[in-house]
């Protein structure tokens, strides 16, 4: 059941990304173009998603354990440090440069474009590089 729910969650995520327009780099860059020809649509994606999680997570995290595992694997770190902010700032820079964050980039592999494959390979290389350096 754990595997099946994971697959289902993945499918819902993929449908959601494609439906929302997040797999369209031009649209994402248009959303980030707040001081130009702003396309506000994608604010509704984050808005809609957080609207659901902010309600559902309250109830779920009150449980002793999830349905199909023994405990919750939720980060307990609450410290806002330099590493978090530098990482987030860099991520935003790359996101703005190209128009993909990790989820949509991976989902867009479905479209079989070499550009997206190149982006995802570079992204994974970046993750490996950062983890090696610590």
């Amino acid at each position, binding site marked *: 059941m754990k595997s099946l729910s994971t697959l*289902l969650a993945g499918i819902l995520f993929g449908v959601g990304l494609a439906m929302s327009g997040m797999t*369209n780099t031009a649209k994402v860059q248009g959303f980030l173009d707040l001081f130009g020809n702003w396309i506000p649509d994608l604010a509704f994606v984050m808005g*809609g998603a957080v609207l659901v999680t902010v309600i559902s997570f309250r109830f779920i995290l009150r449980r002793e354990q999830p349905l199909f595992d023994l405990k919750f694997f939720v980060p307990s770190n609450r410290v806002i440090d330099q590493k*978090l902010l530098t990482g987030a700032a*860099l991520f*935003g820079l790359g996101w703005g440069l190209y128009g993909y964050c990790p*989820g949509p980039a991976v989902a867009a592999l*479905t479209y079989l474009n070499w550009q997206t494959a190149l*982006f995802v390979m570079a992204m994974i*290389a970046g993750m490996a590089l950062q983890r090696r350096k610590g």
Partner: protein
Amino acid sequence: MLEPYTTPLAGGLLIGLSATVFLLATGRIAGISGIVWNAITAAGERQLPVLFVIGMLLGTGLYHYISGMPAPAPSDAPWWLTILAGLIVGVGVSMGSGCTSGHGVCGLGRLSPRSLAATLTFMATGILTVFLLRHVLGGIA
């Protein structure tokens, strides 16, 4: 065509539902950068992240197949910018322990101050980057 905000909102609700199913069933956070990393590295358990990624690919294909909406065209950014941006995103999400899904959708959902700080930061630098790219440098991409 539907109202311009209907499909983004419906897509967002589905993403929230996905994160809800994943947390309720497995106790895990649907943060895609972490899931992708765990899916390709042998460290830790690989089965769930691999299944999640397969689901994402299936779901994306399924949406276009059923809706008849054409797949969006890939970015026309030059190859070097594609690699550069990918590298920066990879380093950034790894250093910052998450991306739009982990910090944005899930972190804000559980009212994490760390995730709020991260989300505000990457939104700000994303907006700043597009501003510089389009309105100062005049669009190299």
